[in-house]
């Protein structure tokens, strides 16, 4: 079955002529409580009831992707970082893909309403954000957007064009959807019980520090190869036991960093860093915190520090209020870094750095594409990506 690309059909649209809007776009699926009262041609209709997901799909509530608007003049809402708070759907999507593998992930949310005016060109970011993480936002046009289309306003027409441009960009690169996240860190957790909040928040907040990771359920660990990772964080209330313990200790002994709750190993640590007791284990290390974890943002920073920023798979400069998501096929001879910019306006000139010596890169934005040349950096290769608004993809190749 072809991948479904969903669009919420506005209840107000009772006229088949409205389908013209979708002609020539990748949208192939209308979503709503009931099908529109006219033939849909090649379009499929999917009934979406609250709390229920269509077959093969898992639907999750999302948030309008953005930096939270200022509550006082010249100030954005502060987040855990002390920097502006970013509402991102990255964590929700990654969690859904982990907990319900094999299902398509759809995000269901609307643009903020009430007194808040959302510029229509932000809708393309919502489309791109979801697709960058290999999911789909159920495109849901706001009343002002619908009104603008009705009145044939330039702003609405231009914004719709960008929404379609975002979809087309991903349609033109189906291989990107087959790529896997590139990361030095594996996050292992049951994502249940008393650690659910800690582990899920870790996954949600890590993009704020450009900390790349892959997520695994503890129950699935037996079938997972940890060879590609430099570190594993095991987020449970108790240290691992049985086969999980054996596998994780083997990972450390082979040279990795295992961050585990207290009690995994005993005796005097070889080192204490940022309060963590670090024990040598073969060629690697086991790091245990001084007390039970209580703050996912702090934990994320501690893990990043224990692992070292040297292990970052991609470095981003001038990437504030931005997520980076590096995906690649096995071997990583090529790959693509998705950059989602959550602030309004254009970015500062963005630079990406890689330890791997990629030789070529091409930047794709919603306005076009261009080649960029590598430059020698202090820690490897750097690519001057440049400025963009909302979204850019940087395709790299060895």
């Amino acid at each position, binding site marked *: 079955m072809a991948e479904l690309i969903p669009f919420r059909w506005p209840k107000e649209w009772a006229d088949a002529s409205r389908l013209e809007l979708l002609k020539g776009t990748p949208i192939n699926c209308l979503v709503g409580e009931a099908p529109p009262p006219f033939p849909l041609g090649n379009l499929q209709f999917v009934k979406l009831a609250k709390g229920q997901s269509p077959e093969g799909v898992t639907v999750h509530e999302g948030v309008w992707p953005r930096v939270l608007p200022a509550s006082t003049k010249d100030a954005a809402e502060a987040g855990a970082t*002390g920097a502006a708070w970013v509402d991102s759907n990255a964590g929700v999507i990654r969690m859904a893909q982990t907990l319900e593998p094999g299902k398509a992930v759809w995000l269901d949310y609307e643009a903020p309403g009430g007194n808040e005016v959302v510029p229509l060109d932000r809708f393309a970011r919502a489309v791109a954000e979801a697709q960058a993480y290999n999911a789909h936002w159920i495109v849901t046009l706001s009343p002002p957007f619908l009104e603008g289309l009705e009145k044939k306003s330039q702003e609405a027409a231009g914004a719709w064009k960008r929404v379609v441009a975002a979809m087309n960009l991903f349609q033109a690169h189906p291989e990107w959807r087959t790529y896997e996240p590139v990361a030095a860190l594996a996050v292992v957790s049951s994502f249940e019980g008393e650690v659910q909040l800690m582990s899920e928040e870790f996954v949600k907040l890590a993009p704020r520090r450009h900390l790349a990771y892959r997520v695994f359920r503890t129950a699935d660990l037996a079938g997972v190869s940890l060879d590609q990772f430099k570190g594993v964080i095991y987020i449970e209330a108790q240290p691992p036991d049985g086969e999980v313990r054996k596998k994780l200790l083997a990972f450390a002994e082979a040279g990795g960093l295992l961050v585990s709750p207290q009690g995994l190993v005993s005796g005097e640590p070889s080192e204490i860093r*940022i309060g963590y007791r670090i024990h040598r284990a073969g060629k690697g290390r086991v790091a245990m915190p001084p007390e039970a974890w209580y703050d996912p943002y702090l934990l994320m*920073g501690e893990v990043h*520090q224990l692992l*070292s*920023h*040297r292990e970052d798979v991609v*470095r*981003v*400069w*001038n*990437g*504030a209020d931005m997520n980076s998501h590096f995906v690649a096929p096995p071997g990583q001879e090529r790959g693509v870094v998705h950059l989602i910019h959550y602030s309004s306006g254009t970015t*500062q*000139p963005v*630079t990406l*750095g890689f330890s791997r010596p990629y030789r070529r890169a091409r930047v794709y934005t919603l306005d076009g594409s261009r080649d960029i040349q590598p430059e020698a*950096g*202090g*820690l490897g290769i*750097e690519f*001057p990506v440049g400025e963009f608004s909302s979204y850019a993809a940087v395709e790299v190749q060895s």
Partner: protein
Amino acid sequence: MALTAGAGLTIRVGAAEPPAEVSIARCPAYGEGVVKVLGQMFEQLGGIGKLVSGKRVAIKINMETPLRDRTGFRPAWYTRWTHPDVIRAAVVLFSQAGAQRIRILESSCEDDHPLEENFVIGGWDPDRILKAAPNVEMENTGSLGYGKQYHRIEVKGKPYIYPAFDVNHSYVECDVMVSMAKLKEHRLLGLALSMENMLGITPPTIYGESAAYEEPSIRPYGRRLMFETGYRQPSEPSPKEVDPSSPRDPGYRLPRVIVDLLRARPVHLAILDGIETQTASESASVEPDSARKIRLVKPGVLIAGWNPVATDAAGAAVMGFDPMASRGKPPFEKCDSVLRLAEEAGVGAGDLRKINIAGATPDSVRFPFRQQG
């Protein structure tokens, strides 16, 4: 032999003359050549051995946060941070001169990472510095760091704003204090040189925007806004302002806080990296309403001196400013002159006529920042 070098400046050279206080040298590019140039400058200053031999040397570099911000595409080492090649050159020369231990220091306002990690975040391998000589260390002094408690340093003489400061242990566990800054402008202070660099010895856990009131925060975060506006006092139990009713004008306060700091933690050697830098701002941006834009420039100059006031005065002259300008005149349009205040407080001479300069003259390497943009 004495040479006149413009602006009434007298340059003394020759073996019979007393050592110069400031040395200026052309240095067109970063790389291994910086070691040679800086070594010659130290010789012009009378040799570095007498200062560092057998001593614990602390080098306060300039690596202002945000760590991931760049001016355009250019790494911050070339625009607003002390370049690692200059740091490395000093490390090599200090070590050759017999320094017992060399500790590189900077305080991050955004994290309590080891300083080594912050080099990596900035895009540089710290091992190139750490392995340049034996006994080289790094510490992020934005918090307690590797120390167990903060240490109080008291202002010598009558303080302008604060009677004392509480700082990371590394600023007292040293015999020699080096301030190594970029040759650059500051949006408020006019100059962000070796004196301004010393603002960064204060830990944001006590003086930053997220400093707790009852005690220092555990982790550093936020600018040291209290120095500028006096909107609050440092965390308990750190010393409070001597006169909370003094002007809250940042242009009054900030230069005075700097002079207080210099009298609490004297600097023995100041080095200015003007090989590559930027104009108009100490950070990666200017205010949206600024008439100026940041330009990336290559003055190709290094400046070093025993006294930070004299060294910064020479730096100001190289940048095309009158070091003794008063408030309202470039570069001090928005603030009192930190050079004048420092001279008045007896920290050093800001008047070029009182400074012995060796090597190149300010005129010969002048690079007028305001004409660049």
